[in-house]
């Protein structure tokens, strides 16, 4: 289990290869990559700056991974989240979950991402032609996380 918050980009192929190496129990790997869009709330986005709370961010993601492990068979998990200034088409976040079977890998990957969006202390500021603006939290993200409360393993 691994959590990294970094400015550098990441390579999904290298990360999956590293996770698979030497672990014959893995039968399924699910992954998610979040990417910067060029339009948000109807305005074009030139760049985006991500701020975080060093220490708490890593701790909260580790807690989310632990919660996923408590609900599904997770053999390994990795979350990489970038901070600093990013531009459209840049990768922001990577989640990789390894399990014996696909059902657990898919569900745990989506759960980790849904909880990360509503729990992990990151904040996005977009630079648009109108200037800088902090991104507002979305009710749809809250609902995406809440639906897991009713899902029993």
């Amino acid at each position, binding site marked *: 289990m691994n959590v990294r918050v970094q400015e550098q980009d990441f390579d999904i192929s290298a990360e999956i290869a590293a996770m698979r190496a030497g672990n014959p129990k893995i039968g399924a790997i699910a992954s998610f990559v979040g990417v910067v869009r060029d339009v948000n709330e109807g305005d074009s986005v030139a760049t985006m700056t991500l701020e975080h*709370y060093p220490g708490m961010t890593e701790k909260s993601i580790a807690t989310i991974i632990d919660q996923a492990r408590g609900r599904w068979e997770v053999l390994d998990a990795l979350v990489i*989240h970038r901070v600093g200034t990013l531009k459209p088409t840049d990768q922001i976040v990577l989640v990789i979950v390894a399990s014996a079977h696909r059902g657990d890998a898919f569900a745990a990957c989506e759960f980790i991402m849904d909880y990360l969006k509503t729990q992990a202390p*990151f904040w996005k500021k977009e630079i648009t032609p109108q200037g800088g603006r902090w991104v507002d939290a979305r009710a749809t993200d809250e609902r995406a996380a809440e639906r897991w409360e009713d899902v029993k393993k």
Partner: protein
Amino acid sequence: MIRLLYFARLREALGAGSEALELPKGVDTLARLRAHLAERGGAWAVEMAPARNLRAAVNQDVANPETSLKDGDEVAFFPPVTGG
């Protein structure tokens, strides 16, 4: 002393990212600390007002208004998160 941290939109509005504060007598919960900071007036009164949707953490764990405070704590206030 406690260490106070402010993030994102809140940090910009207050013009401060962190400060050290001697906990005044009677300021022993997160709600009381927030009310104490609001008494500074100006941007503090606006941003720390009860109606403002702020989140908080004590020693890097999510906290609620009733969370108790003690000397040496790290207390953070921030807007709802928007990562991912």
